[in-house]
């Protein structure tokens, strides 16, 4: 199965800029479907980026984050060709992770 995570990490030699796009419904639990029934909450709660065995960015999310969430940040260091590990877990216990090469 293709990963739900698309990540692009680009180093300029000094800092690494990371952009990630994740496929996830991010249902808040406040929206009704066409039949007027509440769509139960289903959203990513934690998203972690790890470089060199250490977390470089940790996100705690609620249902207020947009569907197919996007996030952007930068960290100092990070070498071209090195791995950046991305993983998430949602409120139903599902998880996914991927590893991207820094470009």
């Amino acid at each position, binding site marked *: 199965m293709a990963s739900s995570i698309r990540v692009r990490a680009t180093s300029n030699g000094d800092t690494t800029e990371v952009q990630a796009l994740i496929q996830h419904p991010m249902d808040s639990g406040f929206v009704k479907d066409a039949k007027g029934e509440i769509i139960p909450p289903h959203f990513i709660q934690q998203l972690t980026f790890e470089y060199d065995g250490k977390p470089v960015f940790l996100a705690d999310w609620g249902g*207020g984050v947009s569907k197919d969430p996007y996030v952007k940040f930068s960290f100092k260091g990070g070498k071209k060709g090195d791995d950046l590990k991305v993983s998430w877990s949602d409120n139903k216990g599902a*998880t996914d992770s991927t590893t991207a090469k820094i470009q």
Partner: protein
Amino acid sequence: MSIMSPEFFANRRLVLKGIGVAALVGFGVIPLDVPQALAAANDKYPEEAFKQKTEAEAIKALYGKTPEASDKVKMDAPEIAENGAVVPIAVTTTLADVTSISFLVSENPITLVASYRIPAGTLPAVGNRIKMAKTSNVIVLVEAGGKLYSATKEVKVTVGGCGG
């Protein structure tokens, strides 16, 4: 994989979920043990903060202190969002020793939208996309050097993001 790493907990959570609720009750000590371990790893999901319906309660649950407005917190948000389901908001700050950045929407049913932890070496700048139920103040909180700072901006929403 180190025992303190997030994937360890992710896997462990999965295993725990897999065991089932009945078993969880039976092994009462296990779910009790997990939050403590998570706190030790500074990896705990702020469950309570994500239940609060007002910004004051959410800020209290998340940080336990009151923010002061700071012009060193720069929020990049649209004046008018045509689609409340996807509102791009970014923040940067010149404050030193930033440890966390959070986003709140006053008028959303749950005010806290996202909270990011910024380890040393990560730049204090985050961009993301959030949902807004209707026109509301967007509040960005920056925790730096143990203090809490904020920036607030009203974003007008033409089509709400929580009404389907």
